[in-house]
C-alpha cells in the first residue's frame, strides 16, 4: 500500500463527508433520509463537465452556475419530496418519495449525458506537490480543505447564529418550534437548498479525480449515508469523521486487496457498526419514525 492511497482515501472521504453533512442537514428538520441527495453530486460534476470540459469556460463560472443550479435543485427536491410525504401520511412515504426523486433526477442526467461514461473535467489546479516524499494532487488537497472549511462553517453557523439555533430547535421538535414562532417551513426549504449546494460543490470538486457517471448518484448517497451513520446522524463532526473512515477504508482495502472489495469492506463496516452501536459511533439514538 502506498501512502498515496491514504491521501486518496482522505480525498474521497471528504467528498462522502460533505454528502453525509448534507444528508444530516436535511434529516434534522424533516426526519427524512434523502435518497436523492447523491443526485446533487452528479449535478455538480455534470455542470463542471459541461462548462469546463465542453464549453472551455473557467472554474469561477462553474462555481457560480453550480451553486445557482444546485439551489434550484434543492427547491425542486423540497417540493418533490415534502409534498407527497405530507399528502400521503404513510410511514414509508419518505423513502418512496426520495427514491422516486432520485429516479427522476437519475434518468434526467442519463438522458442529458447519454453517451458520456465519466463526467470528468480538467482539475481546477493541475499537477501536485510533494510532502515528505508523498505526491499530493492539488485537486485532492483543495477538496479536503474545502470540506474542512464547509464543515467548520456549518458547525459555527449551527451554534452561533440565530438561524442555526432555530434549525437545532426544529430538529428536536418541529411542532414545538412552530409554537415558538420559528418558520419551520422556511427552514425545511433552506435545509434542502443548503444540502443540495454543499453536495453539488462536493461533486464539482470530486469529478476531476473520482469516477462520476450520470447514474452513480445513488451510490454516492449510500456512501454518504454510511458515513453519516458511522458518525451518528445529526452531527457535522460525526459526518466528517464518518466520511474519512469510509473514504480511507474504501481506498486502503481497494489498494490492498483490489477490485470492489473496498465496497464490501465499507458495507460490512456499516452493518457491524449498526449492530454493535445501533445509534452510530457518536450519535444519539435516532428515534423510530
Amino acid at each position: 500500500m502506498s501512502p498515496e492511497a491514504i491521501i486518496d482515501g482522505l480525498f474521497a472521504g471528504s467528498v462522502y463527508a460533505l454528502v453525509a453533512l448534507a444528508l444530516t442537514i436535511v434529516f434534522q428538520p424533516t426526519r427524512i433520509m434523502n435518497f436523492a441527495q447523491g443526485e446533487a453530486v452528479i449535478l455538480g460534476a455534470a455542470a463542471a463537465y459541461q462548462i469546463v470540459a465542453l464549453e472551455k469556460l473557467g472554474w469561477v463560472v462553474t462555481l457560480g452556475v453550480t451553486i445557482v443550479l444546485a439551489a434550484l435543485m434543492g427547491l425542486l427536491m423540497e417540493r418533490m419530496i415534502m409534498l407527497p410525504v405530507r399528502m400521503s401520511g404513510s410511514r414509508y412515504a419518505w423513502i418512496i418519495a426520495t427514491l422516486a426523486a432520485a429516479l427522476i433526477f437519475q434518468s434526467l442526467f442519463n438522458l442529458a449525458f447519454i453517451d458520456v461514461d465519466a463526467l470528468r473535467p480538467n482539475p481546477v489546479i493541475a499537477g501536485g506537490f510533494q510532502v515528505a516524499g508523498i505526491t499530493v494532487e492539488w485537486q485532492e488537497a483543495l477538496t479536503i480543505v474545502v470540506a474542512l472549511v464547509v464543515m467548520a462553517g456549518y458547525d459555527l453557523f449551527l451554534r452561533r447564529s440565530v438561524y442555526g439555533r432555530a434549525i437545532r430547535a426544529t430538529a428536536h421538535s418541529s411542532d414545538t418550534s412552530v409554537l415558538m414562532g420559528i418558520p419551520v417551513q422556511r427552514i425545511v426549504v433552506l435545509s434542502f437548498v443548503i444540502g443540495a449546494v454543499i453536495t453539488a460543490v462536493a461533486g464539482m470538486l470530486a469529478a476531476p479525480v473520482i469516477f462520476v457517471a450520470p447514474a452513480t448518484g445513488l451510490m454516492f448517497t449510500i456512501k454518504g449515508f454510511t458515513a453519516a451513520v458511522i458518525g451518528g446522524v445529526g452531527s457535522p463532526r460525526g459526518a466528517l469523521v464518518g466520511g474519512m473512515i469510509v473514504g480511507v477504508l474504501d481506498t486502503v482495502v481497494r489498494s490492498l486487496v483490489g477490485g470492489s472489495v473496498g465496497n464490501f469492506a465499507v458495507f460490512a463496516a456499516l452493518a457491524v457498526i449498526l449492530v454493535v452501536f445501533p445509534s452510530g459511533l457518536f450519535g444519539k439514538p435516532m428515534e423510530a419514525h
Partner: protein
Amino acid sequence: MATVDSRPARAGGTAVRGSVFDSTGYHRARKAVLAVLAVVAVAVLLAWPAITDYYSYNASYYDGIVASAAISAILTISLNLSMGYGGMLSMMHSGLQLAGGYATGYLVVKLSGSWLLGVAASVAVGTVVAMLVLLVSLRATYLYFGMITLAANLIVIEVGREWEPVTGGIVGVSGIAPSIGDEIMSKRAFYYVVLACLALAYVLQRNLVRSGVGRASMAVRESSDTASAMGISPSRAKLLLFAVCGGVAGLSGALYALQLGFINPDVGLLDNGIIFFVGLFLGGISTLIGPVIGVGFIAALVELIKDQARYTTLVLGVLLLVAMMVIPQGIVGTWKASRVGRDRLSEPEDETLPDTVPDVVPEVRDVPDGVAALEGSGIVKHFGGVHALDGVDVRIMPGTVHGIIGPNGSGKSTLVSCLTRYHQIDAGQVRIFGEDAPHAAHGVAHAGVTRVFQVPHLFERVSVLDNVLTGMRMRESYSWVGAVLRSPSYRRQDRKEREEARELLAFAGLASRADWLASSLSHGQKRLLEVVRAVASRPKVLILDEPATGLTSDELDALGRLCRVLRERGLAVVLIEHNVDFVMGLCDELTVLESGKVIERGTPEKVRNSAAVLEAYLGRPDLVEEAS
C-alpha cells in the same frame, strides 16, 4: 383514513345513508362484479399463451412479459408481507432475489442438477439470508433496520461480483434452463409454472395474514410493547415473517433465473429493486391483491412505452410521486376507502348488556391457599438518580380486586412495568403464583399476567374483532405452516376463537361494532375493548393502568361490572387509578404509594382513615391550620 371517510355515512343521517352505494343491493352487485372480474382475470392469464399464439407471431415475447410480471409480483408480495404487514422496511429484496437466482443458477448450470432442486435451494438460500440479516439487526429500530438491509443488499451484490466459482463474477451465470430429463421445458409450460407459483405466493400471503401468525406480526408492527403484553414475542414474530419473506423472494429469484436464463449482480441493484416499491405503493401496501395489481399496471405501462424505453425510469418516477399525492393508499387502498368500494358496516345499536357471563371469560381454579397471584418484594428501580421505586412490597391475592393508588409521580406505573418486566428492576423479586417471573415481558404474559396500558394501545388499523383475536394468540397451537395450509386443526381453532371473541364483545356491549376499525371507536369504547382484548388472553392476573380516565359514568359501570365478574371467576385484578370513588367501591385491598415507597396497605376503610394517606394527598392539615 378509512375511518375518516366512513364516518359521515353514519353521522350524516338519511341523506347520505340512503345513497345507492350503501344499499344491500349495490353491495351484492359489486361483489358479483368483482368476482366475475377476478374469474375473467384468472381465465385470461390461464389462456394467455393460447391467446398470444392466435393473435401474434411473437407469442413467446408476450408470454415472457406476463411471466416476468408474475415473477415481479411474487417478489412484491414478499415485500408487502415484510413492509405492509410486518412493518419491516426491507431494502434487500432485490438482493434476496439475486441470492435465490444464484442458488438455482449454480445448481442447474454448474452441478447440472434438476431445476426443481434449484428452486428448493433458492427458497432455502433466501430464507437463510433473510434470517441472518434479521438476527443481527434485532435491536435496530425501524429506520436503521432499513439501512442494515440496504447494507446487506450491497454485500450480497459484492459477494456475487467476487465469488466467481459460484456466481460467475460480473458476467454472472447464463444458460439456466428448466429441463425434464434431457429435454428443456418449453417456455409455454414454464409460464404455467410461474403462474402456479404466483398463486401459491398469493394464497400463502392471504392465509398467513388472516391467521394468528399474521395478527401477531401486525401487532408487533403497531407496537412491540403491546404485542409483548399479549404474550407475543416480537423477535420471534419478526424472525418468522421475515424468513417467510426471504423464502418467497428466493422463489422469485429462482423463477427469474429460469425464465430469463441468466442471473448477474445487476439484478440485485437497488435501481432495479425500485420497481417493486413502485408496484407495491401503486397497488396498495398492506392489501392482499394490491401488489399484484400494482405490478401488473407497471408491466402494462412499461410495455406501452417500450418504443421510448429511455424515458421509462423518468415516467415511473413521476408516476410514483403523482400516485403518492393523488392516491396515497394505492389503487386498492383508495378503492376500499372510497364510497364506492368500502365495505358495509353494521349499524351501531345501543346494546343491552347480557346478564349471563359467557363461558369464555376465564376462570382460575385450584389455586393453593395463601399463595399470592402476583407478588413483588423489595422492588427497587432507579432512573439515573431518581429512586422511582425504593423497596416496594406488594402482594396480590387471587380472587381479589387490588387497587394501587398514590399521587402523581409516586411510581404506580413504574411498579406495573417492573412487575410485568417491561423495566429491568435494580433489586427485588417478582413471583407469579409462587414462581419466579420470566425475564421477558412476553414470558410474563405467558405466565398469566396481562396488562392494559395507561394510554390506549389498540391496533387501530385492524377491526375490533381482530384486536380481540390478537389477544388470543397465546393459546393458538397451530404453526404457520398449518395456517398457510388451513389445516383442520387451524380451522377448528380459528372458528372457535371467532365465536368466543364475538361472545366476549357482546358481553362488553361492543358486538355490533365487531367489524369496525378499532380507530373508529370512541375513547371509552377503546378502553373497554382493550380490557376485552386482555381478557381474551385468559389471564390469571389482569393489570389495568388507569382504565377509568375519561370514561362516562355508564362506561365506568360497565368496567366495574367486568372487574367484579373477573373477581368472581377467581382472577386477580390490579387497578391503578386516580378515581378514588371508583377504586374505593370496587377494591378489596389497596396499596398506597408515595415517592416510591408503600405508605399504607389494607382495606379501603383502613386506607381512607390513614393519616399517612391524607398527608400524601392533602398535605398535613395540622400544619395548615397552624399557618393560618
